[in-house]
Structures are given as C-alpha cells and as structure tokens.
C-alpha cells in the first residue's frame, strides 16, 4: 500500500498501517494528497523565508493538535480504503439505547472495533451471538474522540445464512413456546370455498398465478385481493393490515398469503414475528406460499397449510371442477347401481315368491284335482244318471217334482219323463193297475 504513504503528509511518520497490505479496490484511484480543508490553517503556507514549504508537524513549532492528527488520520483511512469485507468472530456485541450497535471483530491475534449505525442496525434480522463468525462489510474510519480506528459496518452476515437462520430460529422458538406452531392448531381448509382472500402485491406474479389456477379449477369461486407491499420498508405493517382487512370480509372462507421468489432479505417480512402472529390469529384457515419450494418462512410454520408455490396454493384452496364432476358421476352411477341391485333383489324375491306360489298352486290344483276325482267318483256313485242309463225313466210334473205315487197321477194330466238323454212329454191315460201311462211306474224313482 505504498500509495498511502507516497506524497502523504504523514508518509515519513509511517502513520499508514503497515499491516494493510493489499489494495482493497483496484478501481479506486490512489490518493496523492489530502484536501486543503482538512489541513490545519497555514500548514502549506510559505514560511516567509524564501517560499520554502515546511510540512506541519516536522518541528515543535509546527506541531499539530491531537484533533488535527486524528482528523487527518481519519481522512487517510476513509479515503484510502474502499468499503471492504472483513471476516472474524463477534465479541462484546452491544446494542445501545440509541439503536447503534458496537462490537469487535477478532481472530486469534487481533481485533477491530466495529460500529453499526442505527439505520443499518434496524435491517439486521437479529443480533449475532457472541463468538459467531461473521463477515462485516463497511468502511474503515477513525473514532476521533478516542483515536481508535474502527470499521463502520453497513452489512453483517453470518457464514451462510447464519444470521437469518439465527433470527429465524429465535422467532421460531418463541412462537413454538407459545404453541403457535403446534400442528394440532392447523385447521382443515374448506372443501369448496365460495370466496378466497388473497393477501399479496397487486402487481406480483404470485397474484396472477393464484388467480389463474383458481379460475381454471373452480371458476365460480369469488376472489378478493387485499393488496400490500411484500418486501421492503413498511411491508411488515402492510401485510398485517391487509390480513386483518381481508378477514373482516364476512364471506371469505380461506385466505392465501403469498409472494413470489426472492432473496432471503426480500422474503424477510414473512419471518417477522408480528406477521407470524397476524397469520396465527387469522380467523379463517390460511395458506401461505412464500417464495420458492425451498423457502420456508416463519409464517409457514403458523399457517394452516404451507404451499410450496403460489400456483400450488391455488390448487390447494379450491377443488378441481373436473374432480367434482367425476364425483357427481360416481354418485350418479352408484345411485343407478343401488337401484339396480335393489330391483334385482326385489326380482329375486318376487321370483322366489312366485316359485313358492307356483308350487303351492300346483300342489293346490293337484290337491283339488284329486279331491275332484275322488269327489267325482262319489258324485257319480250318487247320480241317478247311471240308473237312467240302464233304461229307467223318472216322471216329473211341470215343476220338476218327481211323481212317485199312483195318487200323484190324474188321468189327462201332462207330465214329463226324464230319460238318460232327455225328456219326453207324456199324458196320463188312466190310473190303475193297467194304466198305460203307469207302465214305467213311480217305483223307479230314487
């Protein structure tokens, strides 16, 4: 770092640190001198003995004040080093009431004092732990009051995503301790929501994705956007307000909190405890879909369901109309099958019954038949017809009464004779032993 001392006011004194060996930013032009305004008045003034310039501090007469030296050293430090990354372990971290943070970075043999001004400190996800290895990005400067040089840190990152991870874990532990991450808290999503609330940015791809998927799957679903910023300053408050607002709508059945992919810092709002609490307090089931599949945020832990992407969130909150139609078809088929089987059962029973009935009838008929046969036989035995067959005839008056006795006949009376195959009209000639009309005799009657 020869440029630092070359032509420098303090070059001879070796004020520039020998330990800073490499140029930190090749693009930064080497400084040749310091601006006049930083120099003690008269430092470059000709001394009146022939215009010779006497460098200040070269003699007791031109001695510099402590303040002048520190101011000059500060200027050298600040102008000589481009902002740089420094790796080391965190020691003695202190967040002052002013909001500024003070700590040291150290390795086995050395340490640097560091400060993070409040404006940068508020962007830190959390305070680092003691001894944590971090990379700090900032500018070298001098704290003139103490003559102590320091790194004014603008960004502080733990190895990997250490600090974010640490903040994440701290928040997660707090929420866990309250039971807010308990899977038992998770509610079932409504099977068929009539209105889906979406909390996201109006312009974001995430909103588009969710809407497209819902439109495709369940086009009848109403969608209510509650818009908010999803990153940067004020986003945390806006997300909470948008969540609160969407839940006040009386017909929102389920809420999707979403945003597209981004860096850890972009997604950080969704790791903020206050946002997590707003999600946990959501009165209707809530699905979160923040970033890409690999991004798990604190809100995912307290939501009723976490979707890996906004599109999947859309799929999770509404059913597919095609599936529902299939369900209806199945129901319809089951209904038809149930009726068919019911009808079959009825038919079987009817046919079994009719079989039984048939047997009965046949048996009955058979039984009747045999009765009739037997009866018929008996009836025949009782019938006068067989007698008539043998040549007998039965005299009957007009009313059909059998004329059995002699006194029932008067000469001249008409009567009928029943023979085997019909009747014969007859008249009494005379009564008595030789009466012609009596030749068939009443005795032939039964």
């Amino acid at each position, binding site marked *: 770092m020869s440029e630092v001392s070359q032509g420098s006011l303090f070059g001879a004194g070796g004020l520039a640190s020998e330990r800073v060996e490499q140029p930190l930013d090749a693009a930064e032009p080497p400084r040749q001198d310091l601006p006049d305004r930083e120099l003690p008045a008269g430092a470059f003034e000709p001394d009146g003995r022939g215009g010779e310039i006497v460098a200040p501090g070269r003699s007791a007469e031109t001695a510099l004040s402590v303040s002048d030296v520190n101011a000059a050293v500060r200027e050298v430090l600040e102008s000589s080093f481009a902002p740089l990354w420094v790796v080391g372990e965190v020691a003695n971290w202190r967040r002052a009431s002013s909001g500024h943070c003070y700590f040291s970075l150290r390795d086995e043999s050395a340490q640097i004092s560091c400060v993070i001004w409040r404006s940068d400190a508020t962007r830190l996800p959390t305070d680092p732990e003691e001894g944590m290895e971090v990379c700090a990005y900032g500018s070298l400067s001098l704290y003139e009051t103490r003559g102590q040089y320091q790194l004014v840190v603008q960004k502080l990152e733990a190895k990997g995503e250490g600090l974010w991870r640490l903040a994440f874990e701290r928040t997660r532990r707090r929420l866990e301790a309250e039971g807010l991450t308990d899977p038992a808290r998770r509610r079932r999503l409504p099977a068929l929501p009539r209105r889906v609330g979406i909390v996201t940015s109006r312009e974001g791809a995430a909103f588009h994705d969710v809407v*497209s998927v819902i439109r495709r799957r369940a086009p009848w679903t*109403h969608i209510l956007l509650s818009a908010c910023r999803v990153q940067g300053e004020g986003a945390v408050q806006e997300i909470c*307000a948008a969540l609160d607002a969407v839940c006040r709508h009386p017909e929102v059945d389920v809420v999707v909190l979403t945003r597209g992919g981004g860096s850890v810092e972009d997604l950080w709002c969704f790791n903020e405890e206050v946002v997590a609490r707003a999600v946990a307090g959501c009165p209707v089931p809530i699905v979160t879909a923040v970033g890409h599949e690999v991004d798990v945020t604190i809100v995912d832990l307290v939501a009723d369901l976490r979707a890996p992407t906004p599109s999947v969130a859309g799929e999770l909150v509404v059913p597919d109309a095609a599936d529902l139609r299939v369900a209806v078809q199945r129901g319809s088929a089951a209904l038809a099958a149930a009726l068919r089987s019911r009808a079959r059962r009825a038919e079987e029973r009817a046919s079994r019954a009719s079989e039984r009935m048939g047997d009965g009838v046949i048996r009955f008929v058979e039984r009747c038949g045999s009765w009739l046969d037997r009866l018929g036989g008996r009836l025949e035995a009782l019938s006068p017809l067989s007698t008539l067959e043998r040549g007998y005839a039965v005299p009957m008056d007009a009313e059909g009464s059998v004329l059995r006795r002699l006194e029932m006949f008067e000469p001249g009376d008409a009567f009928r004779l029943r023979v085997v195959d019909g009747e014969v009209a007859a008249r009494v000639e005379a009564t008595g032993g030789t009466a012609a009309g009596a030749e068939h005799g009443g005795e032939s009657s039964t």
Partner: protein
Amino acid sequence: MSQELDFEATMAELERIVGALDREELDLDEALRLFEDGVRHVRRANRLLEDVRGRIEELIDASSAQVDTVELAVDATDEENADAD
C-alpha cells in the same frame, strides 16, 4: 343456502340415498321414490358445477374498517386460459 354448502349437502344427500338403497330393505315403491330423489340431486350437483364466473375484487382500503371492494380486471390472457381449460 350458499353454493358450497349446497353442493356438499347435495352430494351428502346423494350418498345417503345410495346408502339407503344399498342397505335398507325398502319396499320397491319407496326405493323408486328415493332413486328419483337421487336423480334430482345429481342434476342439482351438476348444475352447481356449471361454468359460472366468480367475481374478482379488491379491497379498496385495507386500513379502513369498512369492507369496500372494487371489481378487478384480470387481463385477457388469463380469461382465455381459464376458458381453454
């Protein structure tokens, strides 16, 4: 009755009818009556799935206590996609 309850209730009723037909020894008249009921439920469920467009709205002022919404236009490509599917 709201739409989703309607659909679910309709399907549940259909299921109940199928179950009754399957399990219970109803007389044939009653079974036929149930079946006709079931057919009505199938028709109703299908009608509920007809392609009725839901509204897309935005809450006007998230910070106000009022729940005011405004219809939100979604660009045509979405609509076309939705139609195509």
